[in-house]
């Protein structure tokens, strides 16, 4: 889990550099963040395999497939949360040059940190949550099953 946690931090730094998501970088200079990401990723792989024998059967103390999947999920989750917290602290004073533009999702992290982005989204939600939700969830693709179920529900009413 520690291996996945650190390698997730590294992978997010590499991806954030490629996608220019400055709000997710944990160093101010993007190139430094990229190098740090590559370093953390390769470092965690080497640490994991060189520290002890990892090829152990699940009947002899190793992890079975389900435990591996759970470990990966938890490690990736912790790595993501750590990245968000650290990058929000480091980029606390990141300038917002596109204020007022309709930017949502990850695009907003190009100009501001995660904390400010989610705070802005929450204020929009709190302002008028009905309009907000209807705007977000209209025009979604609907499968045949979905259409069938909704038709049955409407008819039953």
């Amino acid at each position, binding site marked *: 889990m520690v*291996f*996945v946690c650190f*390698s*997730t931090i590294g*992978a*997010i730094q*590499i*991806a*954030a550099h*490629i*996608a220019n*998501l400055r709000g*997710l970088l944990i160093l101010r200079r993007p190139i430094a963040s990229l190098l740090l990401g590559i370093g953390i*990723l390769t470092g965690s*792989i080497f640490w*994991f*395999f060189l520290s002890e024998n*990892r*090829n*152990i*059967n699940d*009947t*002899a103390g*190793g*992890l079975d*497939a389900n435990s*591996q999947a759970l470990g*990966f999920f938890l490690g*990736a989750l912790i790595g993501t949360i750590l990245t968000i917290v650290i990058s929000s602290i480091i980029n606390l004073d990141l300038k917002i040059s596109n204020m007022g533009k309709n930017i*949502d*999702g*990850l*695009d*907003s*992290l190009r100009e501001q940190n*995660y904390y400010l*982005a*989610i705070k802005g*989204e929450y204020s929009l*939600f709190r302002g008028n949550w009905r309009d907000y939700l209807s705007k*977000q*969830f209209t025009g*979604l*693709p*609907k*499968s*045949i*099953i*979905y259409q069938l179920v909704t038709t049955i529900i409407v008819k039953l009413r």
Partner: protein
Amino acid sequence: MLNLDEKILFALNNLNGKYRSLDAIIAWTVSDYLIPVCLCLALICVWLVGHNKTTRYSYQLGVFSALTAMAISSGIAQLLSGLIERPRPFVTHDLIVVFYKPTDFSFPANSVAACFAIAAVVSTFNKKLGLSMFVMGGILAFSRVYVGVHYPSDVLMGAIIGILSIIPVYILLKLTEPMPTCFIKVARILRLA
């Protein structure tokens, strides 16, 4: 067919101990952790790297599909494994086993199926990345035969299951809409997509 299967197995397994550098590389690539974890980390990157909303949406739907394909292929592999009950090659043959000896059945190779499932889905929206994932899956398959825990036909069948798992995934994706899109929308509200 079985003869050819055994011939390839013996040819690869006999390489053990002849090339120290190859042995050292295989000790890493055969691991349950390295290649599967690297592919999943690549999926985390794919989730984030789309340069605009449309590309990102298709990539994220792809990540969703890849994880589903991985689960489906693993399920099919488990099911077939229980039905066919083929013993591991080191049980029936005198092989050099430099990996731990798994206690479950050999056919088909579950980890190879999962890796090829991810690669097959990714190659539908990003050919270069998909191809490199296929190469990684191929390395895993080669390593598994090299260390004597699978027959070549096990890994071949695993790869086929993995590739074919994209069919039920796309049917499932179409049938479960708007759930996947809703999930991505919620993630977008939380600034995670």
